[in-house]
């Protein structure tokens, strides 16, 4: 329970602050401080038990299938970090309360800060590596918000994005590494994994696991060559820098290295990589720090260097090195947070962070000077501060490590790095606080800040001092148990002290201080040299590579995603062609089957010739639209004839009726579409299309040939034929399939038509307004037209035809169940009867005489079909179950009634409504265009064409 509270408290606080976001900053910071204090209290509550060797743990199942559990545990290592996170968190909150100007978005700030605290805390108390990953990624996200806090500043936005890209990217490698680790170890439970180090190290995947996890750690802890994001993260407000970049975020990588030490450490690969990366980072960071001018930048590079030191220590795979690392984590947290805050105070008071403009501040802000100088001394590793002890231990350990078979390499490099550290630390303190003020303007207002602001660094520097003066008392048991937790072995005999006698390490230390002072002496000259060289700027490289990636991706992206329908269709045809041919060729078997063919009659052959010729004519005339439509009609006619020939009268009927309506619609549209012949595509393009088209024809034609030459395989339609009359009450099997066996298909089909009508209505309703309406108003007829709108003979014929065709439609509907026909064809016939009125007598004339709205036809039709289908539920049968009966009336004789006919009536209504709706909408647009045209020639004398 305590653990859950501990882990969830910061998140709850973040939420609370976010909700209370309109209230003042006192509430925000108060909540944050209270939460941190409470958390710290909980940690303190747990501490004795943990140091005594217990590991409080608690677990809730989350995703068992994944091995992800919400399990928390605090061992000494976790305890140390939890204390740091909460303790420094509290200090930072207090500092930030004073640091942030009124008017800043404190709600957003403290909410993000608490979010970050929660994520960070989650990492160190996770008992499941997947849970740890979850929190790990959360730290990247919340630090993104914090670094980008001053969102109007470009550097803040860039810094935030870069930090997210690098640490988030590293986090992804970590995901892979952790998954592999858990899979290899057979569990994602942290303690289990820690106990299976041998298995992991013996696994062939070990190098992959190691490298992936190291990438995660190195990016987070800003190790070379992933260090470059850290200095740019300094765009964050100083409290954020103090928190994230001293004590917490960047330590997460170090934490994880320490956490997984028992599993990963100890191999040559581990030592080689981790030590050398740490070493390089330590030296490199220190070197660059020496030449930076921005206070925060100096501190950032120093942090990189110090993190390198920690990584290197952990890389040694030595227990005492681990102890040194643990102790140095404490020290570094204390002095680095102090230094950041001091830099923040200086910035706050003087308005600048440029070390070249500052100097002699000790006079005007003595308290700050004392605090910062002490902290810098700790960073330089000067006695009697904690930093001295840990550096001593580090130098001592370097003597036990040989890298690349060179026993001197590590000690020498470490000494150089220590030298540089001394130099930049001293430069920080001396240039800032002593000597003469270099830029008096910056010093005008400068004075020590309010107590609230300096008390935080003071407390921390006090800790740093105590860690040096009375290390055993202050941190001994903790360091011992943490070190034991890291190594997974009993704590080594521990002796934290300033004086160990004259040792090689002491010599190296003294040497480093001496050289460091000399270096500082030479600093102006070195600086000149340094600045004369063009430096490889990792940030620029990152930016540039991102820009190149962006440009390349962009070019490829837009080249691929050209808004060309032809490209899309080409892709579709090409892929499906490949699919069909691949399947046909690799699947085996034969193209032609054994079924004997039916000899073709001469009429059939001739009809085939007509079809092919008409198809060719469509192709040849494709650029003369009217002609191609006429040819299309021929194809439709032949297809209908083929259906008659092949015993499919229903299909022939449907084909003919649909053909007529389609042609009418196409003509309506064609009138308004531009008619100038299109340009021919380039030859290459046409050849390419012709090849694809030819192959497509071969493929589908071949498939048809293959089908037709095979015998049918026990088709289910035998059942339909056998049960059509007895079970479906109809002798037209096709119709019974449509309205009974597969009425569900038909329901969908009429709904498709209904939707078509509605969608066309919605689509065209706006065509007379806006841009389209303007275009219609200026629409020009492109060929001269006859003035007569309604030819007399045509009109008269349609008046007689209307009742006749309606009667025919009614008849076709009635007999459909038993003979060719049915609701669909009947609806088309009736629709054509009305379309004829439109054609002959015009839109307005017909529209004002039509009584039933198309929308209603569609709506009621679908409802009728649905209600008929649902009616069967009343009789305990399933949806769409039909029933029928034969009745006899005197004089009339026997007749059949089937509910399927009611369903068919719904079909009728929907189809009629949809066709009429589509047609009337298209006509109305044409009307609009024609009216625009009529307005133009209204004043022409009667009789002129």
């Amino acid at each position, binding site marked *: 329970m305590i653990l859950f509270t501990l882990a969830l408290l910061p998140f709850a606080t973040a939420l609370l602050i976010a909700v209370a976001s309109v209230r003042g900053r006192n509430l925000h910071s108060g909540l944050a401080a209270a939460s941190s204090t409470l958390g710290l209290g909980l940690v303190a509550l747990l501490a004795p038990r943990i140091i005594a060797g217990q590991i409080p743990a608690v677990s809730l199942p989350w995703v068992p299938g994944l091995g992800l559990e919400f399990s928390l545990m605090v061992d000494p290592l976790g305890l140390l970090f939890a204390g740091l996170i909460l303790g420094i968190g509290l200090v930072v909150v207090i500092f930030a309360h004073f640091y942030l100007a009124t008017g800043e978005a404190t709600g957003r700030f403290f909410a993000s800060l608490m979010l970050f605290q929660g994520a960070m805390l989650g990492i160190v108390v996770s008992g499941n590596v997947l849970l740890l990953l979850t929190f790990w990624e959360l730290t990247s996200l919340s630090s993104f918000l914090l670094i980008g806090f001053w969102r109007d500043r470009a550097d803040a936005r860039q810094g935030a994005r870069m930090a997210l890209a690098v640490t988030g990217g590293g986090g992804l490698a970590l995901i892979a590494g952790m998954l592999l680790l858990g899979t290899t170890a057979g569990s994602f439970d942290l303690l289990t994994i820690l106990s299976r180090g041998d298995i992991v190290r013996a696994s062939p995947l070990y190098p992959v696991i190691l490298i992936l996890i190291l990438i995660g750690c190195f990016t987070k802890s800003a190790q070379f060559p992933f260090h470059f994001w850290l200095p740019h993260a300094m765009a964050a407000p100083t409290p954020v820098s103090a928190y994230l970049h001293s004590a917490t975020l960047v330590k997460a990588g170090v934490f994880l290295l320490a956490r997984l030490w028992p599993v990963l450490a100890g191999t040559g690969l581990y030592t080689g990589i981790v030590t050398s990366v740490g070493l390089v980072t330590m030296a490199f960071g220190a070197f660059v720090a020496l030449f930076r001018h921005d206070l925060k930048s100096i501190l950032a590079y120093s942090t990189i260097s110090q993190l390198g030191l920690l990584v290197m220590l952990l890389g040694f795979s030595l227990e005492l090195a681990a102890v040194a690392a643990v102790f140095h984590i404490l020290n570094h947290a204390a002095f680095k947070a102090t230094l950041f805050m001091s830099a923040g105070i200086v910035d706050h008071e003087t308005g600048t962070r440029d070390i070249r403009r500052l100097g002699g501040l000790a006079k005007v802000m003595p308290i700050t000077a004392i605090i910062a100088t002490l902290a810098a001394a700790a960073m330089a590793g000067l006695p009697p501060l904690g930093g001295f002890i840990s550096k001593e231990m580090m130098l001592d350990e370097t003597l036990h490590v040989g890298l690349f078979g060179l026993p001197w390499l590590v000690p020498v490099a470490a000494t150089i790095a220590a030298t540089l550290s001394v130099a930049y630390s001293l430069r920080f303190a001396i240039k800032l606080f002593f000597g003469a003020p270099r830029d008096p303007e910056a010093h005008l207002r400068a004075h020590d800040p309010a107590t609230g602001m300096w008390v935080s660094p003071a407390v921390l520097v006090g800790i740093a001092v105590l860690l040096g003066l009375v290390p055993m008392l202050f941190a001994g048991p903790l360091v011992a148990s943490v070190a034991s937790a890291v190594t997974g072995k009993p704590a080594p005999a521990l002796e934290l002290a300033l004086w160990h006698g004259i040792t090689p390490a002491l010599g190296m230390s003294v040497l480093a201080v001496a050289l460091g002072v000399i270096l500082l002496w030479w600093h102006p000259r070195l600086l000149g040299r340094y600045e004369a060289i063009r430096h490889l700027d990792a940030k620029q490289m990152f930016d540039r590579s991102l820009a190149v990636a962006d440009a390349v991706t962009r070019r490829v992206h837009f080249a691929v995603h050209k808004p060309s329908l032809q490209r899309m269709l080409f892709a579709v045809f090409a892929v499906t062609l490949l699919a069909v041919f691949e399947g046909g060729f690799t699947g085996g078997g034969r193209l032609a089957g054994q079924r004997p063919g039916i000899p073709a009659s001469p009429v059939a052959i001739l009809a085939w010739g007509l079809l092919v010729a008409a198809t060719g004519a469509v192709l040849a005339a494709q650029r003369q639209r009217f002609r191609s439509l006429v040819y299309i009609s021929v194809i439709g006619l032949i297809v209908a004839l083929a259906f008659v020939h092949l015993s499919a009268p229903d299909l022939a009927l449907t084909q003919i009726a649909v053909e007529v309506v389609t042609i009418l619609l196409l003509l309506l549209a064609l009138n308004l579409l531009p008619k100038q012949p299109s340009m021919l595509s380039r030859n290459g393009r046409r050849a390419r299309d012709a090849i694809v088209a030819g192959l497509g024809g071969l493929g589908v034609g071949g498939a048809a040939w293959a089908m037709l030459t095979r015998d049918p395989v026990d088709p289910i339609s035998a059942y339909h034929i056998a049960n059509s009359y007895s079970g479906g009450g109809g002798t037209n099997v096709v119709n019974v399939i449509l309205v009974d066996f597969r009425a569900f298909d038909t329901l969908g089909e009429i709904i498709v038509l209904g939707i078509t009508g509605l969608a066309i209505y919605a689509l065209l309703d706006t065509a007379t307004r806006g841009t389209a309406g303007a275009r219609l108003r200026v629409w020009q007829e492109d*060929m*001269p037209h*006859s*003035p*007569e*709108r*309604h*030819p*007399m*003979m*045509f*009109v*008269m*014929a349609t008046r*007689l*035809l209307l009742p*006749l065709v309606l009667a025919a439609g009614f008849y076709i509907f009635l007999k459909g169940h038993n003979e060719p026909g049915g609701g669909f064809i009947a609806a088309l016939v009736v629709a054509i009867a009305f379309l004829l009125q439109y054609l*002959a*007598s*015009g839109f*307005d*004339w017909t529209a004002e005489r039509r009584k039933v709205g198309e929308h209603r036809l569609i709506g009621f039709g679908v409802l009728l079909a649905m209600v008929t289908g649902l009616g069967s539920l009343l009789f305990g049968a399933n949806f769409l179950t039909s029933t029928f009966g034969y009745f006899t009336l005197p004089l009339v004789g026997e007749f059949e009634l089937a509910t399927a006919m009611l369903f068919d009536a719904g079909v009728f209504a929907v189809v009629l409504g949809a066709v009429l709706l589509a047609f009337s909408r298209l006509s109305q647009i044409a009307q609009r265009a024609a009216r625009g045209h009529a307005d133009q020639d209204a004043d022409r004398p*009667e*009789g002129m*064409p």
Partner: protein
Amino acid sequence: MIAETNLADVVISALIVLGAAFALIGSWALVHLPTLMERLHGPTKATTLGLGGMLVASVLFFQANQGIRSAHELLISLFLFITAPISANMIAKVYLHRRRTDPSGNVETPAGPPPPPGTGDWTTYRRPQPGSPSSTAEN
């Protein structure tokens, strides 16, 4: 299909052949005759006697050979008698229209129609006068 020959069969066969022949002649006219207006006379043959012969043959066939009293073939003729003149009329109008507005499309055309007596013109060229029989649905 049909074994014995009788009078009915002879009549049916004759009608079929006659109908088909007239249909063919109509289509031949369409190919053979020199200008559109002349060619337009072809289809009326196919529509009337061509199809008519076929339909009467069908009526007789189902009556004589199948014992089915069938007359619905007449419906086809009924509808064609209503629609065929309309088709011809419209096609002629298209011809008249195009020959005046698009002479290039009618290279082989001889003289066009004379205008009707008086000052008027044919409806293809001039909007029907309001109130006249030819302005049926003008509004």
